[in-house]
């Protein structure tokens, strides 16, 4: 398991470091925001934190897809300089390796995204029901 994760990380290239940093931030934010939403009494802030978690999860996902695009671009640039007989094999291995950032992003975005969506409901539940607006004064 660890070996295959290490291989995945190695194949993904530079975007993996960025993804790992974002993923660590996402995990820390998930634990912190979860505790904050459960224990803190500031209701509107809890809802904002939940939406922030969702945004962080989507950002991780977007970085993963950008990493894949970067990997495919690198592969296509390399294809111009290789023996035409090897093009098919390099294309296959290259596109397999370019999937590594998406796989890591799909794994790392789960904690903040799923927790954030679930916490939106909790945040909404804690919001007070809106008070009825006072009716405007009648003009004679």
């Amino acid at each position, binding site marked *: 398991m660890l070996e295959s994760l290490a291989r995945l990380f190695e194949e993904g290239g530079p975007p993996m470091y960025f993804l790992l940093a974002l993923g660590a931030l996402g995990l820390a934010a998930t634990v912190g925001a979860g505790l904050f939403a459960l224990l803190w009494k500031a209701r509107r802030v809890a809802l904002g934190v939940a939406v922030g978690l969702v945004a962080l999860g989507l950002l991780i996902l977007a970085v993963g897809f950008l990493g894949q695009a970067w990997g495919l671009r690198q592969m296509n640039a390399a294809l111009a300089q290789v023996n035409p007989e090897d093009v098919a094999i390099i294309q296959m291995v290259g596109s*397999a390796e370019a999937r590594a950032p998406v796989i890591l992003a799909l794994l790392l975005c789960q904690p903040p995204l799923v927790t954030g969506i679930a916490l939106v409901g909790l945040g909404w539940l804690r919001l007070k029901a809106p008070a009825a607006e006072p009716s405007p004064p009648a003009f004679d």
Partner: protein
Amino acid sequence: MMVVFPIALLGLLGLGLGGVSLAFILGGSRLRAFTALSTVALAAGVWTALVGGVGYQAGLRASQSAVAQMDPGQRVRLLAEGEHESTVALGFGLGVGGLCAALGAAAFALGISRATHA
């Protein structure tokens, strides 16, 4: 194909939570609590779809890596088989996850609407 089990489990969780939330919201009892619970069903649906996405990408990556070392005659057939299996995982994840997410979102929207007008 290993992802089928977590997808099925998460899907059952999401469908159960979404169904119960929707039933209670339609019944009109504990409106706010079940509206909040419906977002958990929505989250389970998104999670299911993400697991399906992981299965699809990992399956395609594995088959592409494996067939690169085979002779060209076998390559096309095995790649097509790998792509078919990965697409099944994606379709199952997106289908079940989409159903849970739709149920959760519908319950949430209905709950908010009823709680606002209660």
